């Protein structure tokens, strides 16, 4: 077993890397039973660190 395989990565570090890269989650699901639409889930999520590509949606605080 090499050192790399043995190294343990904490979940907090995984989340940190995930945020640094950024994730977009989209999906549109409608749950229907017997031809009756019951639940609509229209997902459009962006999860990322604030950086040049993903600016903050708020004005820069003075």
């Amino acid at each position: 077993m090499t050192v790399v395989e043995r190294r343990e990565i904490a979940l907090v570090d995984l989340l940190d890397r995930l945020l640094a890269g950024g994730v977009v989650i989209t999906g549109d699901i409608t749950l229907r039973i017997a031809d009756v639409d019951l639940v609509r889930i229209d997902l459009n999520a962006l999860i990322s660190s604030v950086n040049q590509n993903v600016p903050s949606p708020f004005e820069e605080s003075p």
Partner: protein
Amino acid sequence: MTDDPRHRTPEAAPDPVTVTDADLFEGRSPLDPEASFDARPAPAARPAEPRPKPRRRLDLEPDTVERDLVKLVLTVVELLRQLMERQAVRRFDEGDLTEEQEERVGLTLMLLEDRMAELRNRYGLRPEDLNLDLGPLGPLLPRD
């Protein structure tokens, strides 16, 4: 052609041999009592050895319920704090913050860490108590 039963041709196949539970348990083969299953290309199923598995659970007792709930909440807060800390370091590396902003973010994170230590001490919790073993996912927070 050797006498080894493993190398016998189908025509020379011996009479059906019954494998008893005791043979399986001992890892013996009735065809060739000298050979253990380890020597065969496809070893037969060995009895599974029960492996002691460390299990962790959140114990809630009436007399410690406050401390245990605080522990649960502080675990979540600690995860967010460490995540924010890492994200702040990334932001500093990018260099788009002013010096004053970096100063304020650093000071806030430092005060937050002190405050967490204070709360931990109040409930007699060690830093490693706020970590969770997530099994195949690894630990929640890095182990020191």
